[in-house]
């Protein structure tokens, strides 16, 4: 097990995609100290930024004790092991990860779990924008895996999502699930505007208030409860909407009936 403690603060962005169990595995402390990172436009080594300790315990896990909100690309493409961040984490956390587990005991910046292919990403605080969304111009979003956010989520989360699960205990920003084609999203509190815009598949469950309903969704029926994952059900009743009609989509929105009396006007179409 490796323990990293930040020793320096800098104003420049730091790119450190070497912080991953796959890279650290079977490396000596000396080798880990000398892994390359970028601070601004200058090339540096990992020990310039962190105090690095190795415990005798032989497990592929990394613990970061301190605020690393300037450090980008932690856990880039990891396939196994565990990273625990005791503080806030920077952009692109767990980007392209396909296995293992990341836990953040704090907030995460934008693009956390972007293009995720597997594994578990748990954020105890808030997540920034573009949670689980792909790189600009790419149409391949989250393909597998699970993201759990205990706080709120910014805008444009789960764009182009194909499969997998995102659970949000707090509120979500606008454009959640834009152009999603599959997978499940559960928002336990309130959802922002333009939820599920251009979606063609998958389901989004909102247990709280929906800020605004897009005109291109049509009501289908009312359902008592809905399955989120094995052993987890959301209790309704829910209005079930189908859309996005602008894309001839068959995505489903489950919106809590109790919390959204403004949608009762749709009931006449049932």
């Amino acid at each position, binding site marked *: 097990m490796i323990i990293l403690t930040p020793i320096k603060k800098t*104003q*420049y*962005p730091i*790119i450190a995609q070497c912080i991953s169990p796959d890279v650290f595995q079977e490396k000596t402390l000396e080798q880990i100290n000398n892994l390359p990172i*970028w*601070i*601004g*436009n*200058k090339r540096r080594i990992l020990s310039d930024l962190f105090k690095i300790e190795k415990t005798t315990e032989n497990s592929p896990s990394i613990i970061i004790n301190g605020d690393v909100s300037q450090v*980008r690309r932690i856990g880039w493409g990891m396939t196994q092991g565990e990273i625990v961040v005791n503080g806030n984490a920077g*952009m692109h956390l767990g980007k392209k990860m396909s296995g293992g587990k990341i836990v953040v005991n704090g907030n995460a910046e*934008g*693009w956390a779990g972007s293009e995720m292919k597997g594994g578990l990403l748990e954020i105890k605080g808030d997540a920034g*924008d*573009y949670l689980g969304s792909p*790189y*600009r*111009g790419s*149409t391949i979003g989250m393909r597998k895996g699970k993201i759990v956010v205990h706080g709120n989520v910014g805008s444009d989360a789960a764009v182009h999502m194909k499969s997998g699960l995102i659970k949000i205990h707090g509120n979500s920003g*606008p*454009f959640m699930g*834009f152009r999603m084609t599959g997978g499940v999203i559960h928002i336990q509190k309130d959802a922002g*505007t*333009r939820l599920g*815009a*251009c979606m063609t598949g998958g389901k989004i469950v909102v247990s709280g208030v929906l800020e605004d309903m*897009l*005109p*291109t*969704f*049509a*009501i289908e029926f009312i359902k008592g409860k809905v399955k989120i994952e094995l052993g987890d059900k959301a209790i309704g009743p829910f209005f079930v909407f189908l859309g*996005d*009609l*602008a*894309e*001839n989509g068959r995505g489903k929105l489950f919106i809590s009936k109790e919390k959204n009396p403004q949608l009762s006007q*749709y009931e006449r*179409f049932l």
Partner: protein
Amino acid sequence: MSKINSVTCPVCGCLCDDIELTIADGIVAQVKNGCAMCEAKFFSHSNEHRLKTPLIRKDGKLVPTTYTVAVRKSAEILAKANYPILYGWSSTDSEAQRVGVELAEEVGGVLDNTAVVCHGPSILSVQEVGIPTCTLGQIRHRADLLIYWGCNPWSAHPRHLERYTAFTDGRFENSEWMSYLNKVKAAAGRKKIKSLERKGILKHRREREIPTVSDNKPTEILDKKGRKLIVVDVRKSMTAEIADYFLQVKPGKDYELIQGIRALVRDQELDVEEVAGVPVEYLQQLVDAMISCDFGVIFFGMGLTQSPSKFRNIDVAISLIRDLNMRTKFAIMPMRGHFNVTGANTVFTWQSGYPYAVDFSLGYPRYNPGETTVVDVLLRQESDAGLVIASDPVSNFPRKAVEHLVKNPLIVIDPHMNATSLVGDIIIPSSIVGVEKEGTAYRMDHVPLPLKKVVDPPKGVLSDEEILNRILKEVRKIKSNRLEAA
């Protein structure tokens, strides 16, 4: 006195190339064919307030210096910086932009152009869904349905209507000039009556409200022969006054409106009665007009790109064009503001692969708007030096971003003094591109046009390209010295 014909106007994205200039005693004496903005620009070169020597900040005051010192100091700042930003580029020629990319790569900085605060969102969505577009020439000759969405060309691109769209005589479509002239006269008359009423000369009549869609059915435009002009906006702009049909959308609801139209184009039923304040019945008529045209175009401006939903608005607008192209011929085009912002995007793309927000800090170009855009870099207070060229971020960036920009060493290259140069540390005056220097600029439809040199620059004043080349040379010298020392 001499006359120069076919001069390209270096002001807005229309790049009108039919300007006629009269030169007397080495200064522009008369401008023909241009609009008011064009005239102001051509006359500005002889402005007495023009800066002619570089300035450098000493003990808090700007004092005159030489080009050699200014260039050397700028190079030192940039070569030393850990995360410099190089911003502006939209009001200079593509030749200077090319050198700019080289300089940004050399100093490992963040290179960004003014698209970041105007049509950057359009670029993002083009990368996601593509763009079915065409040249302005094609529109001039063939388009019979013109839609201006969230833009006001009458004020921002004054000759757009007259040169490329509704007011121009094309090969297959005629100018609607006469009918518009009547509308303009009527609008002017209405204004006059209002002012007379205000002064109490005329008795107050029934208060005339701005006709919104709800009292202005779009039926007539379906029957009208010839070119049709539709304006979609949140308020009745000058362009809307002369349009055949004005669709008033609730502020911030463009996204819903476009999605509603898309669903109707796809023959879907909507479960609602109105979308963004427009009855679905009217939308259906609009959709009929769109589908029944031979060649339609949507021009969009900041009303779409900088209102809530930003690039998702453009995303669905382009998707709408894609849907319409299954039924008829349609195209879409952003109304670019600065005369060579399209050029900045084009040059950056063929040099680095990305149109704006290019980060060279890792030695190779990287692009992720939100992360590498200059405004975000400044808001997160990450940069430690700045070079601003042909732009004025101090007057249009968020205050917090400006504060950070000013806190660090700031180099400004611009022909005129502006708000940014007043707070800069090194001010380098340059010649005016398209007036005192020839070059290349890209029109809003990506057609490159030559800019002419019509008068000489003030004695000793260098061009943007030359200044950047000198800084680049100096930076390379500093870097090789550093390597040798190491």
